[in-house]
């Protein structure tokens, strides 16, 4: 694939995320009912549908991948606020910054993007693994992708698998950050909604990038 199509590729990615989030909205909200304030599915779906519709109105041909990421960051943030707004906005902006100086969105570029998003989220939320947050999906996913970076065909399946395992593992954690942290031990036994929605994003990324990453 050629460089000029990266903006379109990312736009396709955000479309897929938006569709997937709309489908998982109820499930995510149910998770947030258990240990949060019952809005996570609503927030994520609203935010990514705003991103998708903003990008659909943009002239992608004249945009770089970095510009698409930056537009997604701002749009997502303005649409949702909440906890996820600053977290993902910072993640996307961080990825955008990395892209500026970077080569096309080939396998290495995709892994770098995944890591950059993760690092951005970490910086904004000052969290770490084991806090029972979205980071418990993003961090193992980025690690797994990096470990597989020599095998372009396996990057996204590994990332998804690791992310899903990480999200699953939040079930046995006590929340240390975000709203659920107020519940203390009552948060045990429930999957973190933010980790679950991270997996939804990762899977949409896999769908987008699988096959493209061979070049």
């Amino acid at each position, binding site marked *: 694939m050629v460089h000029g199509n990266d903006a379109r590729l990312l736009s396709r990615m955000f479309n897929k995320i938006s569709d997937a989030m709309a489908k998982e909205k109820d499930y995510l909200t149910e998770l947030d009912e258990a240990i949060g304030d019952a809005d996570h599915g609503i927030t994520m779906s609203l935010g990514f549908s705003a991103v998708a519709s903003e990008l659909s109105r943009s002239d992608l041909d004249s945009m770089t991948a970095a510009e698409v990421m930056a537009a997604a960051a701002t749009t997502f943030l303005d649409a949702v606020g909440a*906890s996820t707004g600053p977290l993902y906005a910072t993640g996307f902006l961080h990825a955008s910054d990395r892209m500026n100086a970077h080569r096309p969105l080939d396998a290495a570029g995709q892994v770098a993007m995944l890591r950059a998003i993760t690092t951005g989220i970490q910086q904004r939320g000052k969290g770490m693994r084991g806090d029972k947050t979205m980071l418990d999906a993003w961090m193992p996913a980025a690690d797994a992708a990096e470990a597989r970076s020599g095998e372009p065909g396996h990057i996204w399946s590994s990332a998804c698998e690791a992310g899903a395992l990480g999200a699953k593992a939040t079930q046995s954690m006590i929340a240390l950050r975000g709203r659920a942290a107020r519940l203390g031990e009552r948060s045990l036994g429930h999957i973190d909604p933010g980790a679950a929605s991270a997996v939804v994003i990762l899977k949409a990324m896999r769908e987008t990038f699988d096959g493209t990453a061979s070049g």
Partner: protein
Amino acid sequence: VKKFLNDPDHVVEEMLEGVVRAHQKHLMPAGKSNRALIAREGPRPGKVGLVIGGGSGHEPCFLGYVGKGLADAVAVGNVFSSPPPMPILHCARAASGDAGVLFVYGNYAGDVMNFEMAAEMAEAEGIAVRTVLTTDDVASSSMEDRDGRRGVAGNFFTFKIAGAACDRGHSLDACEALTRKANSRTFTLGVALEAGSMPQTRRPSFEIGEDEMEFGIGIHGERGVSREKIENADAIADKIIDRIFHEMGAVAGSRVAVLINSFGATPLMELYILFRRVEQRLKAKGIEIEANWIGHYCTSLDMVGASISILHLDDDLTTLLHHPCDTAALKIG
């Protein structure tokens, strides 16, 4: 759960259209969006600007407290979601009278991130910003971790004091210090009997058993700190007051302000019954009620439940409490 709604995804926009028309004597949008609302007679040169805000679903919080003598601007988020930085920044700009701006909002991860981003942007424009997080919810963490607590209905008092301090022309330092003092002397505990329901789901966000209540509840339909057997009104009030007495250093002769707040569906009749007991307990300790508010002051959609907040006054705070204000939800003087 049945509600008066049109498209549930437009609930906040539609509500704000109503608010802007209904309260046009008190407030107006900062720009084209209704997500940043400015007091008509609020900001003025030389006065510290007070910016408050948070998610929707808590009405009359926060927009009901915008007006002369109270907040200069409010940023409005989605239901139970912090507003993003942009409307907060619009508020900061509009509230600024070149004497600095004070941000006062509840201590929640989302709000902290968004308000901090906005503060950085405002500072970059040359607006001095100070922040006081409200942390009145006694249930949300231990006494030692006071700063880790969340802000609930008691922010009513903290807003009131902050607004008065700003309106009386105090410096940014002084406004911040007085607001911090108000927050540190405000104690709230809430109880939910039934969960509220989001406009989009219209089902109770969680179930509370027939003979149960959720003790130490927040204002976002989050679960409380513990599930307990339901008790009668006096027993519930006692439990709350005992916890508050344990923290509040008030002794005989002290003065307090009391807020009995409905979370939405609990009617005034029951709030008066709770107040009756609170007054008995305070009286028995020789503590005097300087002022009280009973009603819907900080809600959690249509949750069935109530909270009790006590502000332990001193001379400064008493003066500021009585300072006149004129907003949609609170008129004093």
